[in-house]
């Protein structure tokens, strides 16, 4: 029996990745830290920790807590700032995975300043706009408003031809509405979803456990919730999606691909299991062989019938 040749290569709106595995923002640093224990052969792209224009100190500790099947974090965008990042960028270029840079700013203007600088770097393949960081003391996340999302995307879009991805919060009444507004304003793809807001209370002190009170919930606990959002957005828009929310193994990955995801984002898994990318790709390949599937395109979105 002739075997079909299997390809895991993934096309995200013109961005060609060697495989669909993406390391999510905030859970893989800037990649370099992982070199010793991650095999980058198994990673399509890494999304950097979200950068801001100026360095940011982050929230007071404790910043992380384990909950049932989940992790609450309140890092608060601690990062070295765009300028220092670009100073170090040469070291990142040699990583054998594509680099997507995640950015956040309070204002459109600051977003644009950052994008213009990133646009000059040939090795940056795509930019992820973090419209959904839950750990900042601001009233609203950009992606909690369809209008705000549209106006930010429209403004930023003019600054670059690179692939632009918006990362959305799942915490809205109608995520399709927000996704659609980003799409119509010219976004290339979406990153779905960021964490859900939660708290933990220390039963000894009777006070909130995290230094910042609120944290973002990630991990297996949010998988069905994330999957529902990916499912709904893909159904309406058929737009490229980097899915994240509790993906730990190939079956999780398949569920998201069936729902319509283009890329498989690993977040919490990176904190725990450096072998996850290899294992997922190996099992995915085996699944494809067994089911005579030669490319992920054949199974993408099939849950919609």
């Amino acid at each position, binding site marked *: 029996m002739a075997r079909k040749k299997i390809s895991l290569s993934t096309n995200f709106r013109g961005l060609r990745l060697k495989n669909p595995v993406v390391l999510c923002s905030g859970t893989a640093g800037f990649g370099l830290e992982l070199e010793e224990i991650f095999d980058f052969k198994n990673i399509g792209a890494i999304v950097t920790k979200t950068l801001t224009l100026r360095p940011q100190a982050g929230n007071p*500790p404790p910043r992380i807590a384990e909950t049932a099947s989940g992790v609450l974090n309140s890092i608060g965008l601690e990062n070295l700032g765009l300028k220092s990042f670009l100073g170090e960028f040469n070291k990142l270029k040699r990583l054998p995975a594509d680099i997507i840079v995640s950015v956040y700013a309070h204002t459109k203007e600051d977003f644009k300043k950052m994008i213009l600088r990133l646009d000059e770097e040939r090795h940056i393949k795509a930019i992820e706009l973090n419209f959904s960081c839950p750990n900042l003391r601001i009233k609203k996340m950009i992606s909690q408003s369809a209008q705000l999302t549209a106006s930010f995307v429209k403004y930023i879009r003019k600054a670059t031809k690179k692939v632009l991805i918006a990362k959305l919060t799942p915490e809205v009444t109608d995520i399709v509405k927000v996704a659609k507004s980003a799409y119509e304003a010219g976004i290339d793809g979406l990153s779905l979803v960021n964490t859900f807001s939660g708290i933990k209370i220390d039963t000894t002190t009777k006070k909130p456990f995290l230094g910042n009170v609120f944290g973002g919930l990630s991990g297996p606990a949010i998988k069905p919730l994330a999957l529902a959002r990916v499912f709904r957005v893909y159904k309406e828009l058929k737009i490229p999606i980097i899915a994240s929310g509790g993906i730990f193994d190939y079956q999780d990955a398949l569920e998201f691909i069936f729902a319509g995801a283009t890329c498989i984002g690993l977040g919490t898994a990176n904190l725990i299991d450096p072998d996850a990318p290899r294992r997922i790709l190996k099992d995915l390949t085996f699944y494809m062989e067994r089911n005579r599937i030669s490319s992920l395109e054949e199974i993408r979105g099939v849950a919609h019938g």
Partner: protein
Amino acid sequence: MRRIEASAVSLKKVKEETFLLSFKSSYIAQKASPGQFLHLRIDPLRLLLRRPLSIHRIEGQKIDILFRLRGKGTRKLSLTKKGDTLDILGPLGRGFNYTDKNIQGKVKILVAGGMGVAPLFFLAQKLTAYRDVLVLLGAATKKEILCKKDFQKLGCKVLIATEDGSLGFKGRVTVLLKHLLTTQYSALSTVIYACGPTEMLFSLRPILKTAPRAVCQVSFEQFMGCGIGVCRACVIKTAKGYRRICKEGPVFDIKDIS
């Protein structure tokens, strides 16, 4: 740093709620230095995050971890059976500095509060090449004092402090240290290595105020995510801003902590 799978050699109950877990790894035995820790994935079906535990002792290729029951992770770990596979990431972090020139020739005082003995024993193993190692073991009561004989076997001098006075000096181990620094040892000619509850470690600062040039290296704890420096969960405030316990630490110079 690597992820290894090692099979447990033994698990012993050494005291009420305190266990000694042994496994073999030539890689860790070769690479590890005192004060570094291991990140263990304990119960993948029920627990997500790894649990950080210090390297307690290394003999040949045998690595020991000394731990106290705390919650789900350590409870499950205490049920480990000989032959069980351990999923370990390590060795991680930056340990104690014990090789610097300006440390040689000085008296080393190891100050342990409760489970704080865990990394200090491995340090003592490395220090026995030098003379003058004094170990101060502190706990609430006599029953909780750990590793006294082991330190003595290495040739260290051991002093005990118990809060209830059931053994040795009555009071906190840091008070004993203060006493020694004002009577027998000059802070300038000693190097202090400490590990224990955060509150105890912070109480070292006023003691050392009178000896601003004393070297005091302290191992801190914080709730961790990755353990390898990528998530920035495990920070402590230093004079230069937040630093990661898993990467720039767990051992810091107490003067740098704000």
